[in-house]
C-alpha cells in the first residue's frame, strides 16, 4: 500500500479541499485519513456518517488525593510545566499543562499524587458517499500528544487498508513543520505539497520542502490560486524545477472551492470540468508516486 501525504507548510492553502476532491474521483481500493488532529476538516466534506469512535489513551496525567496532600509545595516547586499550584493547602493540577512526566508522584512525601491514564483523544471512522473509508481523530488533551495521535490514526488506517487490500492510503496532513507534520511523514511514499503564490505561502513551502528532503521522499507540488500572483507562481515553478519536484497541477482562484465547502461537498462534485481536472490530477499523482 502506497502512502501519500498532503502537506503545505502554510495553513489554508487548500490541502483539505484538494484531498476531498480526489476522494470523489478515485476508483481504486483506497483509504483516506486526516492527520490534522488539531483541527481536522476532511470529514466535513466527505465523512457522511460516523461508524465508530474509539477513545485513545496516551500518556498520563497527575491526580491529587486532597485528603493525603499536606500542601508541602514540593510538587509545585519541581514541576517543569508550572502545572501544579497549591491552594488552601492542597495541590491542584492544571490539566491543560500537565505533561504526565510523573516527577511529582515520585517526589511527593505524602504519596498524595497518582498518575492516571490520559484520554488524549479519539479515533473516528467515517462512512463516505464514495464508498471509501475515512479515518480521523479528535484531540482532547492539549499538550504534546498530537504526534502520538497522528501515529495512531495512521496505524489504524494501515490496518484497515490491509483488511481491504487497499492500493493507496491518502493522508490529509496538518500545517506547519513540527511534531504532527513530522509524524505524518513517517512511512510516506510520496508527498503532495499544496501551495499558494503568496510570499508567505512560498516561504512556508520552502521550509516544509527542506524538511521532506531530510526524509528523502519524492514530492510533487500543486499551486492553488495560481492567478493571484503570477510572478510568485513563476518563482514557485522555478523553485520546483531546481529542486526536481514536479508541479502536478495548478488551480486558479475560483469561488467554487469556498462554495463547495459551504455546502459540505467537494469541488469534484460541483462541475463536470472540475471532476475531469481531478481525475487527471489523480492519474498524474499515481504515475509520480510509482
Amino acid at each position, binding site marked *: 500500500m502506497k502512502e501519500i501525504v498532503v502537506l503545505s507548510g502554510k*495553513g489554508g492553502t487548500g490541502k483539505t479541499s484538494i484531498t476531498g476532491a480526489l476522494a470523489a474521483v478515485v476508483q481504486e481500493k483506497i483509504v483516506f485519513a486526516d492527520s490534522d488532529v488539531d483541527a481536522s476538516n476532511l470529514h466535513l466534506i466527505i465523512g457522511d456518517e460516523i461508524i465508530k469512535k474509539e477513545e485513545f489513551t496516551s500518556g498520563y496525567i497527575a491526580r491529587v488525593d486532597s485528603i493525603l496532600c499536606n500542601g508541602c509545595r514540593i510538587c509545585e516547586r519541581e514541576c517543569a510545566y508550572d502545572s501544579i499550584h497549591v491552594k488552601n493547602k492542597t495541590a491542584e493540577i492544571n490539566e*491543560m499543562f500537565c505533561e504526565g512526566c510523573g516527577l511529582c508522584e515520585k517526589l511527593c512525601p505524602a504519596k498524595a499524587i497518582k498518575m492516571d491514564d490520559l484520554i488524549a483523544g479519539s479515533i473516528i471512522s467515517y462512512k463516505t458517499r464514495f464508498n471509501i473509508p475515512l479515518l480521523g481523530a479528535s484531540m482532547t488533551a492539549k499538550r504534546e500528544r498530537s504526534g502520538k495521535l497522528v501515529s495512531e490514526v495512521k496505524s489504524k488506517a494501515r490496518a484497515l487498508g490491509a483488511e481491504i487490500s487497499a492500493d493507496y492510503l491518502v493522508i490529509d496532513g496538518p*500545517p506547519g513543520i*513540527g511534531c504532527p507534520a513530522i509524524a505524518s511523514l513517517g512511512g510516506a511514499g510520496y508527498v503532495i505539497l499544496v501551495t499558494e503564490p503568496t*510570499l508567505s505561502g512560498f*516561504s512556508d513551502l520552502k521550509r516544509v520542502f527542506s524538511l521532506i528532503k531530510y526524509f528523502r521522499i519524492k514530492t510533487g507540488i500543486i499551486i492553488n490560486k495560481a492567478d493571484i500572483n503570477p510572478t510568485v507562481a513563476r518563482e514557485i515553478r522555478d523553485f520546483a524545477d531546481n529542486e526536481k519536484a514536479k508541479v502536478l497541477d495548478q488551480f486558479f482562484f475560483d469561488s467554487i472551492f469556498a462554495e463547495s465547502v459551504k455546502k*459540505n461537498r467537494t469541488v469534484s462534485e460541483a462541475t463536470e470540468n472540475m471532476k475531469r481536472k481531478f481525475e487527471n490530477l489523480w492519474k498524474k499523482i499515481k504515475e509520480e508516486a510509482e
Partner: protein
Amino acid sequence: MSFRVAIASGKGGTGKTILSVNLALYIQEVLHKNAVLVDLDVEEPNSSIFLKTEPKEVFEASRRVPKFIKSKCTNCGICANVCMFNALIKAKEHVLIYKNLCHSCNACAKLCPEGALVMENSRIGDVRVFESELNLTLIDGILDLKEEMSTPLIESVKRKSDEMSADADFIIYDSPPGTSCSYVESIKDSDLVLIVTEPTPFGRNDSALAIETAKKLNKKIKVIINRADLNESETVKFFSEQGVQVIAAINNNIKIAQSYSNGEIIFGKFDDFDKALNKIAEVIIKEAQS
C-alpha cells in the same frame, strides 16, 4: 503593564498574520500608542515578510535535555524507569538518551541517585528581533528543521518580547494555527484572544475548537470574520450561541489577497479594511481599560 492580544484561529490561512501586522501598525500610526508585534508561529513565521527588513538581533533558543556523566553512571536503570517518554534506554554498559523524545521534565536528573545526569541546553531555533522602517518592533522565533517541539521556542520568544516591551501599551501575538499545544502556549499569557475565522464549515469548526480551549483557560474571546459575504448573520449567530461576540467583519476582496501575496501592508489602502481595524482597535482599547 502592556495589554496582550493573541490573534488566533484554529484553522490556518484565515488571516491571522495580515491582521496582526496591520493592527500593530494601526495602533502605532493612528492611535499613537506603543505596540510590539510578536510572531509565535515558530514553525512557519511570516510576519517579518511584511516588514521587509532583516533581523537586527538573533538569539539562540534552547530547551533542557539530560546529559550523562559516564564516570558517575552505575547503569542502575532508574532514569530509564522514571522517564515516561522513553527518552532514556538502559543499554548494556550505560544509558542511551534520545533527545527528540525528551519533554524536559527533569525527572531523570532529579532522581538519579549518583548525580550522573545533568540537564543541559539543546538548541531548537532562533529568537529574532526586527526593527521596521515604520518604527515597529517585531520579535519572532524560527524553529530548526526536524525539531518537533515548538512550545519551548514559543516560550523563549515570549520571554524575549517581555524583556523588550516594558513600555509597550500593547503586545500583539500572531499565534500559530491549530488548537492544542502551540496554540495553548501562545494564548496562555494573553489578556484577550481574537479569533479570526472564515465563514465556511472549516472555519467555524476549527474556531469552535479554539474557543473551547480558550474558555478552559478563562480567556476573554472575540471573533473577527474574514472574507465575509454581504450577510453573515448565520455565522454571527453561530458564535453568539457559544457566548462569543463577533466584533468586525472584513469583506471578501481579491485585491486584498493580491496585495497580501506581495507582502504589502494593507492598512491605508482599503476603506473597509481600515474601518474593521478601527473597530477592532476600539474593542481592544476598551478591554485594556476595563
